[in-house]
């Protein structure tokens, strides 16, 4: 019974909205807004064929490579900078500045330095995504509980064991908060790098549709970007629940108290 109720709650509003959309486009032939039927048909026709291989997959691959590299570099550099006090003080203002630069302006710069290539797009993604991970890792490492740190010291835990059993777990929640921001920035940069400088990929294709006034195709492009965003957010939530299971449990106990 509870499951049925949950499903009803989840489906009620989307169904209503689609019905509303369907009813309002019924009979009218609006240039800007396609009917739900047209959109679904266009979506299947546009994306499920050849384009999947030539445009969608390369884009997703670049996104994946860029984001993974940014996460790995961010965490490693963050662990280093976070645990060395003078290094942190030295780099802090510069890092703060780089984080404040809106990542899309890196596209013209990297285009200039590297030319238009796959590598350039991956570097754009890395150089935009790395800051939230890096700064959150630094902050997480900095905020390790003093008592825990001292206890580890007393028991002679050092080196890799210290990182594995003390630093990573206690900085974990904050690192993952950074990763979440990094994912959404990565998706934005993937699209922008293709809109700005490319002849293939999702971003390019969508802009192309818009320029040629292929409105239903353009909408279907928006839908596919949305679906990628939603899929990424689901994968992230799933992974985060697994990695931070201990932490959510702790929070529940605390909140209940």
């Amino acid at each position: 019974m509870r499951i049925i109720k949950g499903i009803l709650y989840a489906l009620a509003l989307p169904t209503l909205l689609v019905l509303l959309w369907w009813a309002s486009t019924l009979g009218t032939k609006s240039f800007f807004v396609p009917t739900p039927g047209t959109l679904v048909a266009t979506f299947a026709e546009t994306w499920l064929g050849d384009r999947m291989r030539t445009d969608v997959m390369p884009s997703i691959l670049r996104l994946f490579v860029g984001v993974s590299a940014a996460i790995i570099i961010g965490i490693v550099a963050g662990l280093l900078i976070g645990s060395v006090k003078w290094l942190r003080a030295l780099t802090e203002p510069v890092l703060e500045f780089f984080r404040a630069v809106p990542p899309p302006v890196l596209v013209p710069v990297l285009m200039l330095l590297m030319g238009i290539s796959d590598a350039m797009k991956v570097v754009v993604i890395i150089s935009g995504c790395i800051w939230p991970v890096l700064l959150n890792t630094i902050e997480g490492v900095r905020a390790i509980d003093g008592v825990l740190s001292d206890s580890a010291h007393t028991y002679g835990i050092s080196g890799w064991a210290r990182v594995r059993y003390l630093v990573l777990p206690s900085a974990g929640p904050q690192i993952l908060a950074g990763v979440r921001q990094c994912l959404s920035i990565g998706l934005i940069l993937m699209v922008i790098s293709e809109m700005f400088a490319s002849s293939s990929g999702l971003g390019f294709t969508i802009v192309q549709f818009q320029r040629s006034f292929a409105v239903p195709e353009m909408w279907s492009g928006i839908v596919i970007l949305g679906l990628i965003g939603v899929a990424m957010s689901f994968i992230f939530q799933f992974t985060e629940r697994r990695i931070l299971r201990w932490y959510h449990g702790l929070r529940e106990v605390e909140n209940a108290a």
Partner: protein
Amino acid sequence: MTRSAMILDKAAGGPGGVPATAPAGAAGNRSRPGRKWPAKQMLAVAGILGFLLTWELIPRLGLVEARFLPPASDVLAALAVDLQLTAFWAAVAETLVAWFFGLAAAVALAVAAGFVVGSSQFLRRFTHSTVEFLRPIPSVALIPLAVLLFGVKIQSSLMLIIYASFWQIFIQVLYGVADVDNVAMQTARSYGLGTAARVRHVVFPTALPYLMTGVRLAASVALILAITAELIIGSPGLGREIALAQSGGAISGMYALILATGLIGVLINLVMRFIERKTLAWHSSIRSEVVV
């Protein structure tokens, strides 16, 4: 502890936030007595100087060609020239106007929607799936739509900015409104406070820290989107100037403009932190501030 941990957690902008066992203050005095580092400010200045020096040396030593990466001194000179130009300030003003109005509209919409949806269990469950679906849609996906609807006018920027910042704030307000302490609410009820008074004196103060976090996150997102819209769509502002400088081959000028956007970003962060600190001076989370 739980309350402040919750706040900090949201301040981290994500699902987890800082571990509940790690009050930020503890980290401050970890240095062992007897080891004195030079003052933090000196290191910070050294860091900036070191960065500029590296930047200066890379093109001078020929590691990267100077026509792709001009030395820092050239770029700073170009920035100094820019600062005296009316055209530069006009572009800055256009970017900031789009940023401000976009952010203000997003705050107004998100606060209204957040308070209504957040205060009803039914509405929260009813809208949950839709919100979770709409939120991760990257706002750049709307660029073609914005161009089609508004062309290269400021409305295009506003549409993107509002969409992106709305969700940041809305989600925070939802959390905040849901976080109202039951005892406080029941106390207010038994003292006979009406709905308006309860919202004003119980719900609002609880949600305010969340709201401020949301606004701070949204402020930087709004700047990103403002610049993006100008860069890609070509609505007037700093982003368009950057694109123009790049295609016109004014490379030092382009780097100078990028430097300027970064400085604006830093400035916005500082102002937002300041406002947050002022409005939440009464709140315990300010004392154990975690920099996000």
